[in-house]
């Protein structure tokens, strides 16, 4: 195993509110290898984007990193000074947002937004930056990139715009890209193109991608490994094939049962009862126990271990013989 691009050790993010401190991310650890796409999945409010924001250092105050370490390419970045962190953003970590309609500055031409980012991080001449911008646009599949440089965001369709966003995120050749729900705002056909584009870029450039989504279909399609989040904690972590076909955490099992997968034919979709508890009103013991079909007494008192590679955060993980 090569050295991971990103490795998070026991990361916790706290938000002090007037009703006590809330922990959207509670002791999460995972790594992403170069050229690997790690899917981070969970219901909304499970803390998946909060972890992403913590990594790139864009947590909206009063949220702050309480404990844990974030390592990027072997150097620790969670304690970097404001400016050091700023120089790192874009250069080392790229970010792709959810809604392409609002992610691009409506009054600036595409070319300017690209060259501006490159000139900030790479000491190259303006003309060379323009060449690279054209190349970046071609790479993300924008037709006739050369003469689209000086057109404005509103002259592109949703899908095209998301491609531009991806080009922008990658133009300074970061080693890690955090894609926060990149496909949610797009319609299905365009979603598939974007997923394919991300996979292609990941393979060709060896960039590690943290793909945050609530859509299991996207995970199945794109992710190499997957981290399932529930109520701020890591429920399960592992290769996507393994987790999807034989989940060992009851929550993941429920999730898979409620996702229409071609491979499972026409069995009735299973519905997980109840909804995810609010972060400021977590039940005792394992957060999932009120909804867990296999709940036992122990689960109600003891929160259970942190999920790590190969072991789910559950006292009674589901054990199956590995079929695949």
């Amino acid at each position, binding site marked *: 195993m090569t050295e991971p691009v990103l490795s998070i050790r026991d990361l916790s993010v706290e938000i002090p509110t007037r009703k006590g401190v809330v922990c959207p991310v509670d002791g999460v650890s995972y790594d992403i290898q170069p050229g690997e796409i790690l899917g981070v999945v969970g219901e909304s409010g499970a803390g998946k984007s909060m972890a992403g924001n913590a990594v790139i250092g864009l947590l909206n105050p009063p949220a702050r990193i309480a404990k844990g370490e974030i390592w990027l390419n072997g150097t620790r970045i969670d304690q970097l000074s404001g400016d050091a962190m*700023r120089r790192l*953003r874009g250069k080392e*970590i*790229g970010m792709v947002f959810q809604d392409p309609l609002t992610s691009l500055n409506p009054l600036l031409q595409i070319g300017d937004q690209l060259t*501006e980012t490159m000139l900030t991080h790479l000491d190259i001449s303006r003309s060379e930056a323009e060449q690279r911008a054209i190349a970046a646009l071609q790479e993300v599949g924008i037709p006739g990139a050369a003469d689209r440089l000086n057109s404005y965001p509103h002259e592109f369709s949703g899908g095209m715009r998301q491609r531009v*966003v991806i080009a*922008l995120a990658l133009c300074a050749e970061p080693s890690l890209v955090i894609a926060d729900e990149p496909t949610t705002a797009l319609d299905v056909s365009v979603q598939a193109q974007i997923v394919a584009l991300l996979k292609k870029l990941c393979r060709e450039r060896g960039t590690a991608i943290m793909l945050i989504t609530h859509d299991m279909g996207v995970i199945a399609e794109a992710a190499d490994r997957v981290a399932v989040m529930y109520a701020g904690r890591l429920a399960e972590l592992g290769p996507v094939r393994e987790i999807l076909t034989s989940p060992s955490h009851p929550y993941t099992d429920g999730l898979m049962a409620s996702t229409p997968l071609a491979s499972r034919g026409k069995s009735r979709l299973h519905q997980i009862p109840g909804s995810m508890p609010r972060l400021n009103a977590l039940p005792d013991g394992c957060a999932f126990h009120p909804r867990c079909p296999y709940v036992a007494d122990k689960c109600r008192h003891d929160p259970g271990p942190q999920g790590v590679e190969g072991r789910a955060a559950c006292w009674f993980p589901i054990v199956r013989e590995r079929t695949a």
Partner: protein
Amino acid sequence: MLAYLIRRVAQSGLVLLIVGMVAFGMFRFVGDPIDNMLGQERTQEDIDRLRGQLGLDQPFAVQYFRFLENAVQGNFGVSYRQGRPVSDILLERAPATLELAAVSGFLAIAMGIALGVFTAIRRNGFSANFIMSASLIGVSLPTFLIGILLIYIFSVELGWLPSFGRGETVRIGNWTTGFLTETGLKALVLPSITLGLYQMTLIMRLVRSEMLEVLRQDYIRFARARGLRDRVVNFRHALKNTMMPVITVIGLQLGSIIAFAIITETVFQWPGVGLLFINAIQFVDIPVMAAYLMLISVMFVGINLIVDVLYFLIDPRLRADRAGAH
């Protein structure tokens, strides 16, 4: 684009006509001009003769249409008080008001935007809150009081600045400017602060709330996520988007500066059209009053038009889809 312009100009013409009608209609109640034109020992017979001479005994409609007919050709009649064509008087006095409005307008906009951006960026900083509250004082005191206090402090007590008037002016063609002489510049200081303070506060608050709105947008978060320097994020990305909605309001503010000049000119005895208007009211000099209102409304409507066109040019979204409808 052209169709839009024509429609706007037509609307502006309509506005001017209405202003003329309303203004002229109201003057009948402001007093009787004849009293100020005749001395102590006049008789009723003198009054009637002069009233006939000035055509004031005609029915209202006749007077109004004669006024409109002349106004269209730029002839606003003769001032009852000064016995000179009103257009000459206005031409003489306009530079003073325009220069004062320009300086205080610039002051208001420049300071307004700078402080607006500063208080938006450092939203909870102490200095930002202090500026916000201090600027409110500008809006919480009547303009005339601010003017008089400034005179009291800077002219009477400290003696740094002249207490009234416009200082020496240099005549260039038929424009007199106060910018080229030392006393002219010194005379500009206090009045432009008095006039500009009120507008500056309004612009500052507007820019602040608009900037806060923009700073919350995704493209700003994305710009930060790309590691751009704060200066670039705030000024290149955020400010440009902030300015869009602010332009229209600033246009309106400039319009009201000229109209607000009435008070400042009275307090500082600034020889502009505002003071002329106040004197015209005092001496019921109807031609001057009517001409002043027409001048102000032309300026106002003109500024409105320019602002709309400006908005059209700058915002690529509007320009792109050629949407004629505004």
